[in-house]
Structures are given as structure tokens and as C-alpha cells.
């Protein structure tokens, strides 16, 4: 079946059996710190901690982790480049000017801050994404009283994503073999047929699943019992201490 590298890491890392609460506390704590702190030093500390926890602690394959951190690169670079310039009347003290476009100390600093913040925040988010499967996160949301229907729909979605990715790969290969992507117009026609074939497959799969669940208690609320993963007190204590220390340090620095 279709696989996604981040998802594979999430199901197979050394922190897989840790409770979702622990991992969420650590990753989201680092994420909040990364986003709220203005200090580049704090950002760097978050980056180091997140990378260390992911690669050394959870043994996430470094290629996968790197791919996550670099995935938004094109957006971040384009966005930061845009923030680094000012357009209009030439401002005083421009470091660089080309026609109406200029770069100043201020714009450059903002761009640098945004870059640092995005990098640190992405590394923290990546820690959560590569150590915790979506299934576990949905279970966590259930505990947080997110409405049952919403979590049920999301759970089915997660399962179906992989089924449909398989369909996409197969349909696409079958179309390619029959020269469906040999020319531009053919490619567009093929993609349209691909989309509709996937939607149709989604629909029939859902109907068949409904019939399939009839004998298991029906497709009413999809209540299940997740694995028991007790919260580790030392892990939480270390995480809280670390987060508080980092916060204090960044407040003092500011």
C-alpha cells in the first residue's frame, strides 16, 4: 500500500510507545516558545532541542526529518525575500536600492527573524509529526473532548487517504502506459478522469465499508480502545523544567 515517509517514521520510531500527552507537551511547548520568542537565541535553542529529541531520542531517520524541516523551504524563502524588501519611495538609510525596491536594516532584521522563527517552529512541529502517528493524535483529541463525529470522520479519512493514494498511483500508471500523459491535452484529460475515478472509488469504498461494518456493530460511533500508554513522570518533569528554563532565559534576554 501507499506509504508516506513522515507517517512511516511516526509509526516506527523509538518514542512510539511514549504517551501522546508527553510528546505533545514537549513538541507543542517548543512550538509555542519558537513562535512567541523574539530572540534568535531561543529559536536556535528550540531548533537544537527539537532536532536532538527527534534524531537522538526518537531515532527518526535523519533524511525523513530533514525533508520535513525543508519542505516549506520554497514558501519560506520567497516569503522572507518579500519581507526583506520595501517598495515605494526610497526610505532613508537603504542598504541596497534598485528602482522602487529597497532593502533596509529594519526589513532585513524582520526577514531574518521570520526565517529563524519559521525554521525553529517547523523543527518543533516536525518532532511531533515524526514521532506520533495521526491515529494517536486523534485519540488525544477525543480525550480533549473534540466532538466525536469530527474525530470519527477524521479517523476514517486517515485510513482512506492510503487507500486512495494507491488508487491514484495505479490509475496514473495505467494511464501512462496507454500514453495518457504523452501530450498536454491528453494529460489534462487523463487527470480529469483520474480525479473522477478516485472520487468514485472513494464513494464505493465508503459504501462497502458501511456494509462491512454492519456485522461488527454498524457504522455508528466508531468507538475503540486505544493502547494503554502511561505518562512518564520523569519525562514530563524534565520537559516542564526545560521549557520553563528556556522561557525564563528568553524573557531575561529580552
Amino acid at each position: 500500500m501507499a506509504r508516506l515517509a513522515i507517517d512511516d517514521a511516526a509509526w516506527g520510531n523509538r518514542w512510539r510507545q511514549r504517551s501522546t500527552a508527553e510528546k505533545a507537551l514537549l513538541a507543542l511547548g517548543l512550538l509555542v516558545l519558537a513562535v512567541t520568542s523574539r530572540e534568535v537565541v531561543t529559536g536556535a535553542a528550540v531548533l537544537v532541542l527539537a532536532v536532538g529529541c527527534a534524531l537522538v531520542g526518537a531515532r527518526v531517520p535523519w533524511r525523513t526529518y530533514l525533508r520535513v524541516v525543508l519542505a516549506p523551504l520554497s514558501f519560506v524563502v520567497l516569503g522572507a525575500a518579500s519581507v526583506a524588501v520595501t517598495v515605494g519611495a526610497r526610505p532613508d538609510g537603504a542598504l541596497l536600492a534598485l528602482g522602487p525596491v529597497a532593502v533596509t536594516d529594519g526589513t532585513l532584521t524582520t526577514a531574518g527573524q521570520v526565517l529563524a522563527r519559521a525554521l525553529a517552529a517547523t523543527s518543533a512541529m516536525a518532532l511531533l509529526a515524526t514521532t506520533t502517528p495521526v491515529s494517536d493524535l486523534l485519540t488525544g483529541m477525543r480525550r480533549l473532548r473534540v466532538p466525536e463525529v469530527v474525530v470519527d470522520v477524521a479517523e476514517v479519512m486517515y485510513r482512506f487517504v492510503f487507500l486512495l493514494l494507491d488508487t491514484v498511483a495505479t490509475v496514473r500508471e495505467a494511464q501512462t502506459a496507454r500514453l495518457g500523459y504523452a501530450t498536454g491535452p491528453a494529460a489534462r484529460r487523463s487527470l480529469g478522469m483520474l480525479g473522477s475515478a478516485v472520487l468514485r472509488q472513494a464513494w464505493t469504498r465508503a459504501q462497502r465499508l458501511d456494509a462491512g461494518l454492519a456485522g461488527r456493530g454498524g457504522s455508528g460511533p466508531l468507538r475503540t480502545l486505544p493502547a494503554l500508554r502511561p505518562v512518564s513522570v520523569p519525562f514530563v518533569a524534565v520537559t516542564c523544567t526545560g521549557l520553563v528554563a528556556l522561557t525564563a532565559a528568553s524573557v531575561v534576554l529580552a
Partner: protein
Amino acid sequence: MTHRLSRREPSASVPLLAAEGVHAGYPGGPDVLDCVSVELRRGTRVALLGANGSGKTTLLRCLSGAHRPRTGDVLVDGVALTHRSGPLRAHRQRVQLVLQDPDDQLFSADVRQDVSFGPVNLGLPDDEVRERVASALSALGLAHVADRAVHQLSYGQRKRVAVAGAVAMQPEVLLLDEPTAGLDPRGVAAMLAALERLERSGTTVVMATHDVDLAWSWADEVAVVLDRVVHQDVLVKVLTDEALLEAAGLAVPWPVALLRRLGREVDVAFPPRTATDVAALLG
């Protein structure tokens, strides 16, 4: 038609699960099953044979309570099932159906959670749910993949997860639709080994298939679906009836075909199931 009413022997005991005069079909369509009767006895391996589209699956769905017959009864221990929520619920605890395509029954990406769905619906306490999930997974030889995602498993493993989901309900009867279809020989062996473990712990296993060689090597009794009716009898009686198999679009098991061509009769009590058995007979 002559087969329909013949039985191995007039049995005094009431079958564990039976269909009696069942007519069934889908909304707006004709009958798929037309006055069908079958009897499933405790501990008897029944193979339900028929071509694709013959109505095997519909019959299994009737027996499991998932499909309501137009007329006729499904009987458990001789008592007719009524299609109301209470009795249906009780029925599902005793009779579980596993469909051919595992992706039609697995809704959760988490193996353990998916298997827990049935027991949780039964309202069992968490401890017992966990115990049932663990024992179902180990019975199916899946303990080592309990923490993997469903989409990371092979087709054969997913098929066994679907069976585990049914087994966790601890049913008395397990109805399996094409449990070995699409599996390679190793997958088939793993599935059959798991089913044998379940039988030893007291579950009665029924499978629908169009693989006559599998039925020949596995079953005690065979029920063939042909022209919307069912012909049930002991293994050898049905699977040596070439006219019936031909009409049902089924092959003849190779030992039967071979022995026939050699002019030998097949022993009803001790059918030669494997190449070794046949060789012993001929050697």
C-alpha cells in the same frame, strides 16, 4: 434438485446455525437465493462453494444477520432470529462474518484499535477488551504487528486483522468469505493455521470459496450454491458429482479427476486429501 434435501444422516441434534427456506435479494432486484436451506453443525467444517455472483456472500450475510431474508428463517440452536436490535445484537456475538476484501471492514489505521471495535461495542470493561484484543491478535499470528499501521501491512496480514476483529467478539461461528483469495501459499498456510487454532478453542469455521482444491483438502461438508439454491452434503458426495460442479461453474478437485480417469472410486469415509494420500492409494 435431488441433492437439496438429502442429508448425511438424519441427525437428532439441532444444528448450531441454519437457514431454512430463505429467500433473499436486494432492493428492486430478483431473488438471489430461492428457498435455501443449510445446516451448520458445531465443529463441522463446511465449505460453501459457488461461482462468483452465485449468492454465496448473500447467504453468509443472511446467516450473520447483516442481511434480512425476504422470507424464511435463520435459526440459532433451532430458534429463529428476529431482526430487531436486541436479538440481532445477541446474534452478532455468536456469529461473525469476515468479508473477502479486508479494506471493506477495517476503518481504523491502528491495528489494535480496529480489533477493539467489536468488544468495545459489546460494552465490555477496558481490561477485558484489552485481553480479547491481545488473544485475537495472537490467535491470528499478528502479535508482532499490533503496533503497526494497517496500511503498512501486507494483504495477507490485513486479511488476518479483519479475522481478528471478528474473533475478538468470541463468536461460536466464524463465517469467512474467500479467506484465502489473493493470498500466496505462505499466506494461505498462515490463514489455515490460524483457523485451526480457533477451531481447537471451540469456534466453528465456515468458509465460502470457489477453490475446490482448498475445499477438498479442508472441509467435512460442502454446500454448493447453484441456480439460487444450495446443495449440501458430505465432502465426497458433492465433490465427486461432476455434473453438479460443472453446472455450478466449478472445477473438479484434482484427486477426484485423476482417480475417475483411472477408473477408481473415491472412498467417502476417507477421501485422499493430499498428494501423499493419493500416492498411497495408487502406490
